[in-house]
């Protein structure tokens, strides 16, 4: 246990989020129009050039899974890989 009364609080963030019945989620994005996907899945989507907001998630709570992203990526033609 610890404390930080001495901590120089910089820009104070918003106070405790208002109580809302929205599920906090399971490591997925927060509420507020954000896409529900675990961070590595969001990164994968970025690497593959997939726009997450265009997908409907098949995971828990409608979250987007790795498979959703991969499917979307194989549906759209990826950047032409360079040949040796």
């Amino acid at each position, binding site marked *: *246990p610890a404390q930080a*009364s001495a901590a120089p609080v910089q820009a104070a963030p918003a106070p405790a989020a208002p*109580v809302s019945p929205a599920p906090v989620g*399971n490591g997925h994005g927060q509420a507020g129009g954000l896409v529900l996907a675990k961070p590595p899945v969001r990164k994968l989507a970025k690497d593959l050039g997939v726009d997450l907001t265009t997908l409907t998630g098949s995971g828990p709570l409608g979250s987007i899974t790795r498979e959703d992203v991969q499917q979307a990526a194989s549906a759209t033609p990826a950047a032409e890989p360079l040949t040796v």
Partner: protein
Amino acid sequence: MSEPNEATFDIVILGGGSGGYAAALRAAQLDLSVALIEKGKLGGTCLHNGCIPTKALLHAAEIADQTRESEQFGVKAELVGIDMAAVNSYKDGVISRLYKGLQGLVGSAKNITFVAGAGKLVGQNVVEVDGKRYTGRNVILASGSYAKSLPGLEIDGERIITSDHALTLDRVPASVIVLGGGVIGVEFASVWKSFGVDVTIVEALPRLVAAEDEESSKALERAFRKRKINFKVGKPFEKVEKTDNGVKLTISGGDTVEAELLLVAVGRGPNTANLGYEEQGVKMDRGYVLTDERLRTSVPNVYAVGDIVPGLQLAHRGFQQGIFVAEEIAGQNPAVIDEAGIPRVTYSDPELASVGLTEAKAKEQYGDKVKTYNYNLGGNGKSQILKTAGFVKLVRLEDGPVVGVHMVGARVGELVGEAQLIYNWEAYPAEVAQLVHAHPTQTEALGEAHLALAGKPLHSHA
């Protein structure tokens, strides 16, 4: 910190340790009114008799060892001795600074009423303290744990002691028997050895830290052997006798060990006796409070958190459960806690750290789909600089995520932060492998293990 008579709160919390105070602080943020009842000191076991004092001792121990071995690094120094009074005042200084901070946090939370005194559950939603009754729309049981003993073992606080006594010892004993090779036992063994004590661990299970992955146990045993920490595993203790200068312990089979002190570290029992839990209908099992995965007991609106709930007895599990219950009561519908996702650290020298499943557990659950990789710290530059040995072992599912991370070596406890994200976010080895780690750090060992599992080892053979 007023003490109202017959007051009603959104939540009444029984116990102000890790679980209880975390629940109180989070509930207060969510605008719930809280009565936090504590008979001892706010902060509980962890702050006053657990995590913090042991880790202070372990750091003093590290400094003693580094001084002893400083010539290997070109630093000429002489270790004169351990000044236990000074060690204790360093340790107590850390505790009291953190204690003050915590008191400040709880004290400044407008909707927390701190109640000093011993509470008892006298109704399904009523806790009584010194004749006053605190009614809660919800009640959280958080009364924590105590050091257990075994039949035939009478703790006298002098020669036969628990961690509570060990933490206030005013001298460095010549020799100690540590009964119990779990986390607490090996941590004390490690400290004492560094302080120059002759230490023998006696453990009934076949290996030290038996809850960890078998390879971690083996590595710890190897390191302890090198440090000349004696240990006898696989046979239960039979009896203990007092001798002229200390104690004599007999192990099943007849083997005996003598020492000045016996530390009993055979686990922690739930602190639930005579607190009214059973009388009010709370379902229990061998003293533990049974809950569902949302930490609800069998009585409506009564929750339990921390060491009284079967599972890992760790402070940060208490934090997490406390926060969970506060959010649950506030209607936030938080996600269920994955117990395997809670990181585990043993702060001995070497340290052990893990998260997720052991290889054995993973194989039980997933069979042949389980693949492992063990990256030896011998290939890790920073670990070589620290002159530490050990490994990072990954357990993954074929074509699937990492389901377990196990580490041994100096300072690996700090690597579990990253490992915890990997496990809980169900990352694939290739996803971690893509992010090359800072050189030269020990985190690179985690990186290399993922690189190897992704089929692209950098500083190792596949």
